[in-house]
């Protein structure tokens, strides 16, 4: 069912304009993947600068660096950006770049849908940011949304949120959400239908398994958010009453719908991170992943359990105690499969000969930091304790440990690890180490004290605080960590830019790795593999490198 044409060589255009055009019309999964990652990194810097502004405001009590509304816009845009415009596209980007290569395919199942998804994400993000200009309806000075990233009703109703800023939030996220949905359909289909000969499900790299589960989670969770956003839009533009207490509408409905999306969302964010770690740790420990089958089972388990815990974000809204109890129990349960993963990674390192190159450093950092975030999550799941901690800085500490200490560390590791594959050049080790240690230090300086200010009673989302409450020191330390972290990120970005221009040439397989993406040249040709590989075990390249002792005997 195809017609063949000679290659158009769009990439090989000479002028800058031609090259840009080549990127704009591409449907090549690798280029789309790179565009996703680069766009997400840009949004990461923007979101980080918004965070830095917040921290500057909170450096001392009763500061007036930002207005109250300015601060509220900052955390709304920061949270929204980080979750929807950094986390989601980051995973879509890596998934795009890696999944076809890892399963030995020439492209995604629906290449054009893939490009469509990318543009929707990017344009949706830009639409959201356009609110800084058009938020008040093109008439005023503009204003970003200021309702928080979960936009609780009725604060989002026309009565309490005038102008158009909230509509921008809805529309921007909805449009980029359509992009994520396209990507999810693509992932599931690609993984089920495009595997090379011999790549059975239980031989897929764990990263691919995670993307499969993520695909399903997106398909389950995101449409519910879209439905809720449509309802809100109807409320705001047509006078419907879904979330209107004046007309007996319920504020709880939004929360249920949002968190039914929102909780799976956080696992949507972290599972690809788990995937990166599951690829990097074995290669640098020189050992096969410990307990592949149980890892797969745990992933699927996390996927299922995560659909049944959403009300742990609603422990203080006055649900009946039995419901709270139920959700507390299911939330605790999720630590079992997550724990299995942590232990299996450590067991993979155990007895290995670990090379601590930058990707592995980041993964080790991930292991150390994510456990802290996970354990504070467990504390939050204990309802009585949460009545004290919910909506305090303790929660902010928790989720930055899992999101930054987990997700971002894994992403930075993944960027370093796959950079040679994508560009053909290595990133600099020395700069890599600098960025790692700076980020690790800055990260802990910023987010560890948040737990203390939270336990001392500091609520989140406050633009300022009274001097007499014992929070000054912690906030000062937190803010002081930001420049350190910023420097670390800057070193990392600089390393990327510099290395892509004049890093040492990498070769096809610089890390001596085992999955199929390393079986082709770096960067891979447009068609990925000159001949589609045939897979003999979960580590096809191990089998090629050690034909005398192949893995397939042990599966």
């Amino acid at each position, binding site marked *: 069912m195809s017609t063949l044409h000679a290659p158009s060589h769009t990439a090989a255009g000479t002028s800058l304009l031609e090259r840009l055009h080549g990127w704009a019309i591409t449907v090549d999964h690798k280029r789309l993947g790179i565009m996703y990652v680069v766009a997400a990194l840009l949004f990461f810097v923007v979101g980080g600068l918004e965070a830095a502004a917040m921290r500057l405001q909170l450096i001392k009590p009763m500061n007036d660096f930002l207005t109250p509304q300015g601060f509220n816009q900052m955390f709304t845009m920061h949270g929204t950006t980080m979750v929807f415009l950094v986390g989601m596209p980051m995973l879509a980007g890596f998934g795009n770049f890696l999944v076809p290569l890892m399963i030995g395919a020439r492209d995604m199942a629906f290449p054009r849908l893939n490009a469509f998804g990318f543009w929707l994400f990017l344009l949706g993000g830009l639409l959201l940011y356009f609110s800084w200009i058009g938020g008040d309806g093109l008439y005023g000075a503009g204003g970003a949304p200021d309702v928080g990233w979960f936009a609780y009703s009725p604060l989002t109703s026309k009565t309490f949120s005038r102008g158009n800023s909230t509509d921008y939030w809805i529309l921007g996220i909805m449009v980029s959400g359509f992009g994520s949905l396209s990507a*999810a359909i693509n992932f599931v289909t690609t993984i089920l239908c495009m595997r090379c000969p*011999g790549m059975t499900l239980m031989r897929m790299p764990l990263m691919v398994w995670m993307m499969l589960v993520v695909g399903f989670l997106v*398909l389950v969770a995101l449409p*519910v958010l879209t439905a809720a956003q449509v309802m809100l839009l109807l409320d705001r533009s047509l006078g419907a009453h879904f979330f209107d207490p004046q007309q007996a509408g319920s504020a709880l409905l939004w929360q249920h719908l949002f968190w039914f999306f929102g909780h799976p969302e956080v696992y949507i964010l972290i599972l690809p991170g788990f995937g990166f770690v599951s690829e990097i740790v074995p290669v640098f420990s020189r050992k096969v992943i410990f307990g592949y089958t149980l890892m797969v089972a745990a992933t699927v388990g996390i996927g299922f359990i995560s659909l049944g815990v959403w009300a742990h974000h609603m422990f203080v809204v006055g649900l009946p105690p039995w419901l709270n109890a139920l959700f507390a129990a299911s939330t605790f349960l999720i630590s079992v499969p997550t724990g299995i993963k942590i232990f299996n990674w450590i067991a993979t390192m155990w007895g290995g000969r670990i090379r601590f190159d930058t990707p592995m450093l980041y993964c080790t950092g991930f292991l150390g930091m994510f456990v802290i975030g996970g354990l504070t999550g467990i504390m939050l799941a204990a309802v009585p304790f949460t009545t004290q901690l919910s909506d305090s800085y303790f929660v902010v500490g928790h989720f930055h440990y899992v999101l930054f200490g987990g997700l971002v560390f894994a992403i930075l590791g993944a960027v370093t690890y796959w950079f040679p594959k994508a560009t053909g050049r290595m990133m600099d080790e020395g700069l890599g180490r600098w960025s790692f240690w700076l980020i690790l230090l800055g990260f802990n300086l910023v987010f560890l004290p948040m737990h203390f200010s939270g336990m001392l009673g500091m609520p989140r989302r406050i633009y300022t605080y009274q001097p007499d409450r014992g929070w000054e020191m912690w906030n000062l330390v937190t803010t002081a960590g930001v420049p350190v972290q910023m420097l670390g990120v800057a070193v990392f970005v600089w390393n990327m830019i510099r290395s892509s221009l004049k890093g040492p040439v990498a070769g096809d397989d610089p890390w001596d790795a085992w999955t199929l993406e390393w079986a082709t040249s770096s960067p891979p040709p447009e068609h990925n593999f000159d001949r589609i590989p045939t897979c003999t075990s979960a580590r096809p390249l191990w089998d090629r490198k050690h034909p005398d002792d192949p893995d397939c005997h042990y599966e």
Partner: protein
Amino acid sequence: MNAATAQPDTWRPSRGKVGMACLIFMESLFFSGFIIAYLFYIGKSAVGPWPRDVLELKPVLVNSVALLSSSFTVVAAVRALERGRMEAMKFWLLATIGLGAWFLWGTWSEWRGLIEDKGLTIATNLFGTTFYSLVGFHAFHVFAGLLALGTILLLGVLGRLKPRRDTIRFELISWYWHFVDVVWIFVFTTVYIVGMRP
């Protein structure tokens, strides 16, 4: 295990089918959002009118029969295409489109009655809000399905359909059409049965 495992397996599901299944799966979650909202708000409106006062079951039943039977005609159309019987295919496809359009027209006249005679709009009360959004989104999906079927009919009339190549594509569209029908069963149950109980 032994070297036999090194033999490649080659069977993979069809891309089109998996993709369409994903789309349908996703859409059903979208609808469950609205269905849940409907169920959540049954009987909670602050002011009237109430479903019992304004909704009429009989015309809707007729429409439902039209929509549901279009599932059978579309199957017949797919079969016809598969066997290369283009005239039969066009006939059944036209019948499907006709039934779908009838349904849409039915919704339209129901809405006109509600808005003009009964004074129920989306802004009237919670019932209006949930009713119009749920039924409206369903109608929107019927409309999208009709567009797709219409395109196929057009291609058929232009003689551009090739049974071997295009049956699978048509069949996928027909899956979507079945999905729209199944959703209607849920919507109907929610709105006209559960929602009407005193």
